[in-house]
């Protein structure tokens, strides 16, 4: 069967501690045109309670064989048939539901397989140099630290904007946490496939579960776990801000800074890629570009290049723009129009809806120039290539650069770089010709996840 032959909705079952679970009335997963493509089993609260209890009782994944296991799981994820879906069918479903171009999904599959294979070594790169992994380590004879988990059960409340979000929690599994993943109801396929692959490679069903739920039950899952990561907007971040057990992954508000000593024309591909690669849907896509000097030429050049991106159906090999239901595209377009009031529109003033005629629409790029680096628009992050270009001067300082997941600094100013690194609300700094979306196993996304999951315990003496 080829991907194009898929007609019947696929069943996406919960994967519980005792195997697959199908609910009596599965909920519907629709694609960007509104067509039903899958039936997702949402588990009720009591299922979550039972699954958490089972995870708590289960042994951690043994560190000894974990590397081989993770390599096998990565291979299975990238090539296997899981839950009745070959990798091509899986990728089609992800693309059709998340609205990300198929080519982006495909390259993410390969990337994710690499992250899976290296999850244990990645996780260990976050270990403090003063701590050891094993209580039998001879260093402990003289007194040392042992790296230990802060809890047993880790819950993931995932988002569906990009399949790459599922690369992070593997480190928790590798560190010995038992993991419960609540997938996005819009795109549950990646979590299902990844967990299926890990089970097939040898992770036990009571060590790793997939728990699709409604919103309220998802909150119960978070409450019942020792540690949790939650993806969402500002409201979600605010809701969990005071809970030290919850790590929030909110809007990225990723930015690029170009200082006067750098000719941005040399880096235009990097800037364009930062805005638009991955369909512009990731938190590591650039939302703002700040330019020391006149921002107009840069805005014009970016707009010129982005205007050439075609509005195409997702499965077209040339498709690069995200697609969503037509109604939502119109709502986003009108939201953009109101958000952009008072700015200079270089691209997108006619709206961003690229109607594809099947109930869905591609979201065309937008480029707007604002007149101050403190303009409110710079905080407006939208799920398509949408960038705000602002002037910046040394007098503005780094205040406009705060609250940023990735800051790409196109500069040769080492003093400024020191300031950026010292700023607590800038999570990652890329220097030079590297796009904002660059990631690699072992390099933290928002600090090492292990900073949140692990602690160092003093120990002296061995047995």
């Amino acid at each position, binding site marked *: 069967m080829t991907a194009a032959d898929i007609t019947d909705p696929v069943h996406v079952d919960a994967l519980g501690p005792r195997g697959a679970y199908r609910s009596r009335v599965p909920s519907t997963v629709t694609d960007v045109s509104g067509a039903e493509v899958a039936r997702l089993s949402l588990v*009720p609260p*009591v*299922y979550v309670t039972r699954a958490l209890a089972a995870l708590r009782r289960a042994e951690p994944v043994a560190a000894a064989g974990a590397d081989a296991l993770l390599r096998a799981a990565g291979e299975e994820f990238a090539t296997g048939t899981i839950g009745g879906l070959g990798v091509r069918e899986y990728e089609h479903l992800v693309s059709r539901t998340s609205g990300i171009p198929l080519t982006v999904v495909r390259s993410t599959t390969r990337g994710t397989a690499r992250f899976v294979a290296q999850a244990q070594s990645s996780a260990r790169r976050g270990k403090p140099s003063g701590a050891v992994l094993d209580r039998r380590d001879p260093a402990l004879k003289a007194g040392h630290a042992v790296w230990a988990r802060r809890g047993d059960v880790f819950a993931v409340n995932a988002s569906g904007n990009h399949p790459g979000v599922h690369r992070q929690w593997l480190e928790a599994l590798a560190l010995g946490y038992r993991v419960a993943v609540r997938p996005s109801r819009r795109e549950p396929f990646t979590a299902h496939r990844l967990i299926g692959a890990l089970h097939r490679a040898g992770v036990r069903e009571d060590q790793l579960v997939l728990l699709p739920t409604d919103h309220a039950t998802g909150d119960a899952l978070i409450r019942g776990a020792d540690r949790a990561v939650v993806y969402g907007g500002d409201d979600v971040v605010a809701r969990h801000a005071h809970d030290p057990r919850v790590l929030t992954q909110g809007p990225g508000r990723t930015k690029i800074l170009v200082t006067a000593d750098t000719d941005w024309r040399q880096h235009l591909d990097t800037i364009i890629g930062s805005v638009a690669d991955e369909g512009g849907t990731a938190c590591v*896509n650039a939302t703002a570009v700040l330019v020391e000097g006149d921002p107009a030429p840069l805005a014009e050049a970016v707009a010129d290049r982005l205007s050439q991106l075609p509005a195409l159906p997702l499965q077209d090999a040339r498709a690069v723009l995200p697609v969503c239901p037509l109604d*939502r595209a119109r709502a986003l377009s009108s939201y953009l129009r109101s958000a952009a009031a008072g700015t200079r529109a270089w691209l997108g003033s006619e709206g961003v809806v690229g109607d594809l005629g099947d109930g869905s629409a591609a979201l065309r790029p937008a480029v707007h120039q604002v007149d101050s680096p403190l303009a409110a628009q710079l905080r407006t992050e939208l799920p398509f290539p949408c960038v705000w270009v602002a002037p910046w001067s040394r007098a503005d300082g780094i205040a406009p650069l705060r609250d940023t997941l990735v800051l790409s600094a196109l500069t040769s100013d080492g003093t400024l770089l020191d300031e950026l690194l010292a700023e607590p609300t800038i999570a990652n700094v890329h220097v030079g010709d590297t796009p904002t979306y660059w990631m690699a196993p072992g390099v933290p996304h928002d600090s090492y996840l292990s900073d949140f999951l692990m602690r160092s315990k003093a120990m002296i003496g061995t047995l």
Partner: protein
Amino acid sequence: MTYEPSSVLDAAPSDGVDPDEFVRAAMHWHFDPRTGSRYWLERAERLAFDPMRDVKSVADLSLFPDLTDELRDVPVTELIPRGYGNRAALINVFDSGGTTGAPKRVVQLDDWMRRSTEQIDRRLRDHGLPVGTHWLTVAPTGPHLVGDVLQRAAGALGSPGLSIDMDPRWVRRLIAAGRGDEAESYTDHLVEQCRRILLTQDIGVLAATTPLLERFAAEDDLLERINGSVEAIIWGGTHMDPDTRHLLATDVFPDVPLIGMYGNTMMLTALIERVGLSASRPCVFDPVSPNVFLSVVDPGTGERVEVGERGQVIVSHVSKSMLIPNNAERDTAVRVRPADGQAGDAVADVAPVATVKDERVIEGVY
């Protein structure tokens, strides 16, 4: 069959009176100036029809508008039919939970309390409930009907009722205020109180709300105890979705029969799950002629939906002590043919009205 009006009205649910005749008798009682309540006599003047003349059958109860909103303000003494004279034995005033605003108030007189208890007792015995064994009921008491119903049911079976009170209004307030952690602490508090009883007393019947039963699922010692010695679990007070019911019956409490109870304040009693249904089949609640009539309607048109279709539940309570006709519940259910020749509809898979959640996400990429 013909009855004197008074004898028809005094019939118990098991007496097999003709429901239409009962309704006619009730109209004469509630709308005759000598016997009706002050509330109904005054309200009748503003009805578009004459209840004594126009309401001839159960079906005609649908002529009444839903007047239950007025029960938020009516002084309870004005609800008592004058026909009782000085002999009216007011046992309780119950409040609705206040989900839809200020609580609505109903009165429970001695005669209806006995009817209701007899009916529940009979249904529970049909389920084979043990007699004389200790009950633990964990339910809202005080102004709430459900705790009282359960206590009386235990009593009818000769069973001492141990109980833990819960305050659903406070829990709702906590949740509405975003204080979910405090609501959790309150639940923990309830579980702790239950633990003391379950581990020290010989409990044969456990009656609890769905969320409490779900919460027990996390307590290994309680599960062991309940599965080891409890002979029946009665759930009620809130809804239970079919997946939860199946899991509780097969996975959490595999050794104990689960018996559903559907009731609310405006019904003034509770309906017990039809006997003989497995956890894989929908949970059905039959009405109780001639006092509790259900119909399942299209919320848009008010027309009855077909058997097997889901619609909004409309409940009428008709007794000598109270008349609460045509009350549109916030519940939905699947319409089922009632058993035992009961009038009206039976309901299956009762669920709260679905609340539509907007997909807010305009800003942000998630």
